[in-house]
């Protein structure tokens, strides 16, 4: 079965890509398989200047998931463009840059600098792990709309806005991104959580809170994508706890046009490649005749391919 999908700016061989922050800039995974096999690659967050991020410990294990508070550590957008992206350009895979910042101006600067080197931007207005900026853009619809439209106006490539699940009304945020001119949505980022060690009596993560990812959050992500698909006419890149082809199908039935695999890369560095190999057979097993039939399938009496959005 042909599992290719076309989304704004992205011709995907398959709908599977690694999620931002869980794949670095690809080098480490290139020793396990050919990165050209991937549908796309979402890069680690870029900010205007180099950031060290939070103190360690930065991760903690939870039931069916993990907390992380990396804090957007990255070498800064210039170095990413000069030292990281050239390596990835050798592969035949679309690149999506994850654009982060603390101010509108920083978002604009990062977007304007990196957009020339990649196929699309993922606008990260949802990182829960930095004190300044990031998350308030993702919880206040007015700010979300403004940052989206400002980034859109400087970007030469399509912009996918990455939404935070830590909100009362995800549809309001999705609509704000749409009003701001987003070409697509990426959902979800992590749920803010905490783990306390009974022995030390303190939070395990030095930043105290961290972002929860993994299968634990999947029901929340599926619910939000299902809601947003009904309300907003934009393609969605779905993520949160994907580990199996059944998970991918569940995301696409809810309304995702493609999916990203995050922390599961830590369990199994080959997971993206394995899922790509297994997906066609899994779709056939469930009686799908095309990948388009899956997208939004949970919303249709009969899964009609006419309802595919891309």
């Amino acid at each position, binding site marked *: 079965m042909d599992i290719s999908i076309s989304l704004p700016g992205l011709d995907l061989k398959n709908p599977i890509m690694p999620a931002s922050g869980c794949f*670095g800039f690809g080098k*480490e995974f290139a020793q396990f398989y050919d990165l050209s096999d991937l549908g796309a690659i979402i890069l680690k967050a870029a900010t205007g200047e180099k950031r060290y*991020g939070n103190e360690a410990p930065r991760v903690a*294990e939870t039931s069916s998931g993990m907390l*992380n508070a990396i804090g957007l*550590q990255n070498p800064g957008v210039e170095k990413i463009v000069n030292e990281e992206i050239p390596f990835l350009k050798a592969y035949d895979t679309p690149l999506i840059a994850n654009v982060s910042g603390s101010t509108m101006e920083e978002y604009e600067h990062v977007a304007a600098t990196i957009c020339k080197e990649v196929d699309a931007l993922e606008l990260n207005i949802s990182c829960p792990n930095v004190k300044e900026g990031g998350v308030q853009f993702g919880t206040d619809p007015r700010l979300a709309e403004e940052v989206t439209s400002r980034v859109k106006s400087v970007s030469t490539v399509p912009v996918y806005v990455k939404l935070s699940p830590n909100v009362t009304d995800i549809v309001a945020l999705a609509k704000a991104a749409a009003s701001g001119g987003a070409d697509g949505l990426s959902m979800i980022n992590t749920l803010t959580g905490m783990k306390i060690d009974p022995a030390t009596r303190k939070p395990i993560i030095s930043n105290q809170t961290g972002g929860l990812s993994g299968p634990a959050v999947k029901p929340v992500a599926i619910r939000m994508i299902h809601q947003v698909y009904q309300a907003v006419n934009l393609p969605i890149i779905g993520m949160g706890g994907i580990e199996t082809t059944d998970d991918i199908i569940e995301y696409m039935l809810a309304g995702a046009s493609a999916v990203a695999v995050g922390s599961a*890369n830590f369990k*199994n560095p*080959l997971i993206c490649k394995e899922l790509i190999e297994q997906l066609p057979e899994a779709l056939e097993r469930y009686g799908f005749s095309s990948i388009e039939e899956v997208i939004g399938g949970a919303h249709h009496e009969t899964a009609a391919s006419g309802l595919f959005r891309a």
Partner: protein
Amino acid sequence: MRREWMEIVEHNAVAKDTYRMVLKGQIAEEVKDPGQFVHIQVSERFFLRRPVSIADVHPDKSEITLLYKVLGDGTEALTEKQTGDKLDVLGPGGQGFPVEEDVREALIVGGGIGVPPLYYLAKQLVEQGIKVTTVLGFRSKEESFLVEEFKDLGAVYVTTDDGSLGEQGLVTDRTGELKGSFDTYFACGPTVMLKAIANQLDDVRGYLSMEERMGCGIGACFACVVHTPEDDEKGYRRVCCDGPVFKAKEVVL
């Protein structure tokens, strides 16, 4: 580095809450240096892998030996694995102890569950004709292990918190006295111990193996980052791939 289902060929208790596990697989043939580690998926119940140092290697038999201590749910669940079971292992990972040409007399300092990687190191050093002196610290006699094995390789001093084996005290009580008798030291153990050693042996070339909570274990997630001194432009090192072994002054403890 590969992901592999390794076969457990031996698994037994060697001290209080401390187990020895021998694993068979290709990973054994790829170990470069003493001090590298494997990243273990204990079972489907656990979301993250557990890093465990390689304590010995038999490339001819494709076997590595691990020594681990039960410190939480994951290591507890590991004890239930049986000989013949397969274990999901990622490795070998990281940069180990360099065995530089000009080392002549080496001091090895291990504390508790930091001791295992030093055993394979000591064997390698001795094989190259380097004189090895070892100082091992444990909480008590019943938690001690590998002491006899180190004795086959050179002089061994043991300290315990309660004096039940060797001298009562800390490893630094002994390492200070040994100063002058070695040109390079290699240490692994709790961070407080590493700090004390690095201070005490400030003027000696040294290598430290560090611990930090890990996500990926391969350098991609930046979970395991430690600071470097101010004059270092990069500003950080990742324990999982730049380390776990660092030059004593390369990182901030």
